[in-house]
């Protein structure tokens, strides 16, 4: 069951400049974990030492906010996970 993760521009340098990565997993957390296994330097960009998502990251599943309990939300084949970093420039 393949799920697509849309990589924000901020993270693309850590995933060989890919805009999307295909992963397998039953939950958002499992999918993000697989992303971090494929691209280990992503791990600290997504997760705290306690393996929680950084507070400045939003996760969207098929365009809808997955908050709260993002990591345990189930996913199915062809779902799209979007990682959204806060931006603040003006």
């Amino acid at each position, binding site marked *: 069951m393949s799920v697509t993760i849309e990589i924000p*521009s*901020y993270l693309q340098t850590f995933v060989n400049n890919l*805009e999307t990565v295909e992963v397998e997993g039953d939950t958002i957390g499992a999918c993000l974990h697989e992303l971090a296994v494929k691209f280990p330097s992503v791990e600290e960009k997504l997760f705290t030492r306690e393996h929680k998502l*950084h*507070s*400045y*990251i*939003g996760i*969207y599943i098929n*365009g*809808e*906010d997955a*908050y*709260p309990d993002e990591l345990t939300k189930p996913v199915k084949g062809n779902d799209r996970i*979007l990682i*959204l*970093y*806060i*931006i*603040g*420039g*003006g």
Partner: protein
Amino acid sequence: MIKGIGEDGQEKLKKARVIIAGGGGLGSPVAMYLAAAGVGTIRIVDHDRVELSNLNRQVLHWDKDIGRPKVDSFGEKLQQLNRNIVVEPVNETISEDNISSLVRGFDLIVDAMDNLPTRYLLNRAAVDNSIPFIHGAVYGFEGRAMTVIPGKSACLRCVYRGLMPSEKFPVIGVTPAVIGCIQATEAIKYILGVGRLLTDRLLVYDGLNMKFTELTVTRDPECEHCHQISG
């Protein structure tokens, strides 16, 4: 005549009082188009002076303005654009101490800041004073926009819950132009009461791929800013 404007609409624009927080890359297009549309009172708040590095995106500031307070440069250009509106330049740093007095009496707050902590202050003030709030932010070729109707739609804090570890957001000048024009559009729509506002939707603009993505957001029942107010 554009449907929804006409003389009545122009009168609504003339009576409207809009505060723009930030006289930089986002604030420039927002202010220009609101002034040109005839928004009657525009308060611009910024504490900075114009620097050379601002000129790639802050199009209301010109080379001759380097070193001047931004609000002076801003006010002068806006008044030249439309002498029939009131421009209120406020050369202050937005803080917890002055935010309420700055926004009181205004119909609309436009977020044109360059940092997240002040955005959160503005969002809080918008919620506490029931003033609609139009968020915009940029980074590189990417931009975001969202409109908040306090008590009815998700606020900025429902969507953004933290701070980035680094507060540097380099910008290519055209990106705030795109987002600022979207914010100005939202402001005009709100004042006129036309169209569908960008509420409960976060618009994500990707200039590199020339793509707009709409994300659905919802009010967080435990939001530290808006959980206690109802529509």
